[in-house]
């Protein structure tokens, strides 16, 4: 039983990484822009966060560095896509390729570095309850902050005026522009917030989730997060649920190995990627369902006055 509690805890932790990035991409996509550069931003943020913690010993500064790196790269992407009207897919892809190269380049001297002793957390009293404690209440604060972020985001998107403006920009930039909203600046802000959250997820990977730096260590989580926004039909609560499900799939491989299932490890490592493909196929099977939920201007350029 104890091992299942730990498996559950690990699932929440793995899901948190995906959830943070996917929530960022959700905000990004609500404004009508797809950023395929998530993987690249997460990689750069991972090395930025890791290096910061190596030098300062402060995890929270590491997270901030990751967010800064993500926002900076997203800003560059945003200027190209929003002001220079470049193709969103190609530009995002360029960001992913650049991020992979740049993070490997910047991180070359950090491959053998180690972080100080990783902190352990436990919620007072609740963390000591048998089974439930280790399953739920001994997580890194980021796990709970992510849950709070989902609630905050639901309120922002569906209950606040600013959220309504953001959604209107994504649904119909022409109308938002006609009403006098600065569509391009709103889009840039959304893209940069998305980048910052992808950056936070990247830094969480290298600082907490697997505390080390290896080239390409994000290993497709940015792409899975992109797929998650589609699975969740752009709804924050569903993003969180989906992220935990995928966190579970990721953890399942370690669990199956742990209980001695005789399957080559490579097939278990494939699981999250195969699961992404399968779920994507199942969800996309009904194009109308996607079309209804997708921000209407997603992926389409908007250039006022053209």
């Amino acid at each position: 039983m104890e091992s299942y509690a730990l498996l559950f805890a690990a699932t929440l932790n793995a899901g948190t990484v995906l959830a943070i990035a996917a929530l960022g991409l959700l905000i990004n996509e609500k404004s009508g822009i797809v950023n395929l550069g998530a993987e690249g931003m997460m990689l750069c943020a991972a090395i930025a966060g890791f290096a910061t913690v190596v030098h300062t010993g402060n995890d929270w500064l590491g997270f901030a560095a990751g967010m800064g790196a993500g926002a900076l790269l997203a800003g560059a992407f945003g200027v190209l896509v929003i002001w220079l009207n470049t193709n969103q897919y190609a530009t995002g892809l360029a960001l992913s390729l650049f991020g992979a190269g740049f993070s490997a380049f910047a991180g070359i001297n950090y491959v053998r570095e180690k972080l100080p002793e990783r902190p352990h957390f436990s919620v007072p009293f609740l963390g000591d309850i048998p089974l439930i404690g280790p399953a739920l209440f001994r997580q890194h604060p980021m796990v709970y902050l992510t849950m709070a972020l989902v609630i905050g985001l639901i309120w922002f998107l569906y209950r606040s005026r600013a959220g309504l403006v953001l959604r209107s920009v994504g649904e119909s930039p022409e109308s938002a522009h006609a009403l006098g909203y600065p569509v391009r600046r709103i889009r840039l802000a959304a893209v940069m917030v998305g980048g910052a959250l992808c950056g936070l997820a990247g830094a969480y990977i290298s600082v907490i989730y697997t505390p080390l730096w290896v080239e390409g260590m994000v290993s497709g989580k940015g792409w899975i997060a992109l797929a998650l926004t589609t699975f969740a039909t752009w709804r924050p609560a569903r993003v969180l649920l989906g992220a935990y499900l995928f966190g579970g799939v990721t953890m399942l491989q370690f669990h199956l190995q742990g209980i001695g299932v005789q399957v080559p490890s490579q097939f278990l490592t494939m699981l999250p990627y195969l699961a992404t493909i399968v779920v994507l196929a199942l969800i996309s099977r009904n194009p109308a369902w996607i079309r209804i939920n997708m921000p209407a201007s997603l992926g389409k350029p908007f250039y006022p006055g053209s």
Partner: protein
Amino acid sequence: MFKLEARPQPSKFWSMGSPLLALAITVVIGMVLFAALGKDPAKGLAIFFWEPIKTPYALGELMVKATPLLVIALGLAVCFRSNVWNIGAEGQFVIGAVFAGGVALLADKTTDGWIVIAILLAGIFGGMVWAGLTALLRDKFNANEILVSLMLVYVADMVLSYLVYGPWKDPAGYNFPQSKTFEAITQIPRLMQGSRVSIGLLIALLGALGLWVFLFRTRAGFAQQVGGLAPAAARYAGFSSRRALWTALLVSGGAAGLAGALEVAGPIGQLTPYVPAGYGFAAIIVAFVGRLHPVGMVFSAVLMSMFYIGGELAQSRLGLPKSLTGVFQGLLLFTLLACDTLIAYRLRFTSPLAVKGAP
């Protein structure tokens, strides 16, 4: 500040000039980077653009690396021209290499030289199967081909890893994760003595010619591209979008698989976990920088190959990490996309006062 003004016609000048401007900007950024790292920028420039063409041997090595890049990019051009976003060429390359390697492993002392043909065909088939999965999921389930093809890269890497750690591991290989070295007869024939350039280069150049004919001289090639440019017009003309999707993915998958076969039965000579070298991703840049045009891609493949060799030389001569290659490749694509804006738009500088004074 400045504002963009739509041109009545896309600029012919800038569609050729943009890659050159992008290269120039990338070189300037590169030289600044070298200076910032305390290295002589002129030396850095020489390592990337002069050393790879200095000697016949170096030139040969340049061609060795340009070959897979060009082969993959030719296929990707068909995809991107028909607005199919296959970004998983790396995975199709790996599975092509696995299929080709599987055939090469069957060879023994009595095998005939014709096995090379079988190896190449197996590679093409492997790449087609892998890309076909993406086409199937897009066609039957409407699943986004960007995400599916990319996810399949990770799966392909795991398939290769399983084989070289498991059933195909060389029993006499001191437990290293690699297959046994292929028999010499499986080696792709080389063009000349003293250079590693193989007939793969000829195949790539013939492929470029074939692509040119297909794109610009056949009805099928025309139909293939109309769907990418104007989906509604294609529907009206009765061109099948499903057919275009399958053609695009099978052609690019086959090309990537062929490149995998050429690599694994050429310079590598065995299956190892290091078969995936990022050519599938770099070829995306080759395709865009070459304007998705067969002739342009020949040049951009050589350029990208220079980046690879330059990165290796920067490591051995200047003590800089090899990953510099990836930085420059990414930068080039970034700057290219920015410069491409000039094709459709004219840059107009406006004085801030004039804007304020305007009614």
